[in-house]
């Protein structure tokens, strides 16, 4: 642990401290010199270079970086789906594996169960995660159903609750996926390009929805996106990653007050931030090849 604090890049420490998390000092996520390799020997791939990261309760961290750099891998590490090849991952004070927190995760591809309707797919976390699971049998046709319907309505899928996943368009699946990540009031929210297949306007609308929700319940959020505007609009911190094997090369607080509006994105400071981020990445791009 001490080790980890020492090895944190100064930049990250600064950023972390100065951001919104100042008033909530408890660490929710600690990655200590973590790296991930898939496969063995020379044929293996380093999916994530040595990475150290601290997240405090209630922070909203956006990850941006080139394709294949390990963004999804970080989320999978935190959710316990991938174990680190080196280093330690601590979530909610415990080593990953034991779930100390209620986690909600939206995967990059929607991964809906093809045998369940959209409603049942979204309801799945309520069936699994305590304390909801205890009431599942009793409430699935009542309270839980209403809860799911309300969420679906919020993303414009009211009419599709009883459809099967293959009857939906790509963007609709993404929205259902987002609902599934949110339905059980997670304390830690992991979103992997949740707005990927959406048009800009639905997208901007959902930014508002997500921000309102975050401000209301204050879950800790890790968001992977490839849209710098999105990263800055939503995040309290932005982590920029280098090309594969990815590392966090910049960890910057976003200094705008919440709630932010679309107007905020036109403020000169906001545009300047975007420009700065961009410059951080572009040399990375050229040096690291197109991937």
């Amino acid at each position, binding site marked *: 642990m001490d080790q980890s604090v020492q090895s944190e890049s100064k930049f990250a420490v600064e950023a972390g401290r100065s951001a919104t998390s100042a008033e909530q000092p408890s660490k929710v996520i600690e990655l200590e010199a973590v790296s991930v390799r898939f496969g063995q020997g020379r044929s293996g791939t380093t999916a994530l270079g040595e990475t150290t990261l601290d997240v405090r309760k209630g922070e909203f961290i956006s990850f941006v970086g080139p394709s294949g750099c390990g963004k999804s891998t970080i989320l999978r590490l935190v*959710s316990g*789906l991938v174990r680190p090849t080196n280093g330690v991952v601590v979530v909610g004070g415990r080593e990953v594996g034991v779930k100390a927190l209620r986690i909600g995760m939206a995967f990059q591809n929607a*991964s809906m*169960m*093809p045998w369940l309707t959209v409603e049942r797919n979204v309801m*799945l*976390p309520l069936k699994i995660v305590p304390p909801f699971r205890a009431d599942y049998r009793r409430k699935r046709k009542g309270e839980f159903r209403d809860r799911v319907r309300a969420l679906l309505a919020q993303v414009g899928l009211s009419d599709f609750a009883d459809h099967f996943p*293959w009857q939906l368009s790509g963007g609709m699946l993404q929205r259902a996926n987002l609902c599934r990540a949110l339905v*059980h009031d997670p304390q830690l929210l992991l979103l992997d390009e949740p707005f990927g297949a959406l048009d800009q306007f639905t997208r901007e609308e959902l930014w508002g929805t997500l921000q309102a929700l975050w401000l209301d319940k204050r879950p800790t959020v890790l968001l992977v996106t490839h849209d710098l505007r999105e990263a800055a609009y939503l995040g309290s911190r932005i982590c920029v990653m280098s090309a594969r094997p990815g590392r966090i090369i910049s960890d910057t607080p976003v200094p705008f007050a919440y709630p932010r509006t679309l107007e905020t994105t036109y403020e000169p400071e906001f545009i300047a931030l975007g420009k700065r981020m961009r410059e951080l990445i572009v040399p990375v791009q050229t040096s690291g090849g197109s991937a």
Partner: protein
Amino acid sequence: MARITRVLSATAVILGFFGAWELLCRLLHVSDLVLPLPSQILVTLIERFPDLWPHLIQTIASTLAGFTFGVLAGVVIGVMVGSSRLAYDTLYPLLIGFSSVPKVAIIPIFVIWFGAGTIPAILTALSLSIFPVVVNVATGISTSEPELEDVLRALGASRRDILWNVALPRTLPYLFASLKVAITVAFIGSITSETIASNYGIGTVMMVASANFDVALLFAGLALISITGIALYGLFSFAEARFTGWATRKSAVA
């Protein structure tokens, strides 16, 4: 409309098959000891149906009893084998060893242990129907899509949760594919057992007919068995279509 032509063309092909059989037998003057005529079989079947019917009922009852227990056991073992390394390494070889023993060699042992009659028939049906269920369920479980499992694992789901919510539903098409096979082999199993030692059931009829070289009755029994087999199979195909429609979905328009 399309449905009607489907049924008609299928009927035509099948009738054509039997017509060709009848015609060839008549043209080549095949002895009815070698291959009776379809018409002859039909007549025998209709004439003796009142005698055959109670035997058939008995066999179906044994089949269903054995099948039910066999499928239950098969699902449990299949889940174990598909999800646990140790079960796979131990149960599987034992089961395969047991399954690769022809039932004609096992049934006499059942008879010695439990007497002739219904119990060996049920046991044979049971032991035959376990295997296809185990293989398919285990295959379904072990080939499950990791992405879907991840959705639950990320929620902190237990192995049991994953089993119930991903592995089993995903295994349903495999399970139902195996049920069709299992009911068929269960039916075969109980008949086989009856042909070895029993005084009732369609298998007994077959044994007597074949020992007496009553070829027409033998084929009538075969026809009855086939029809019943098709009906049982059809039943489980219907169940399959009903419950695993999502796996065979086709675009409604394209």
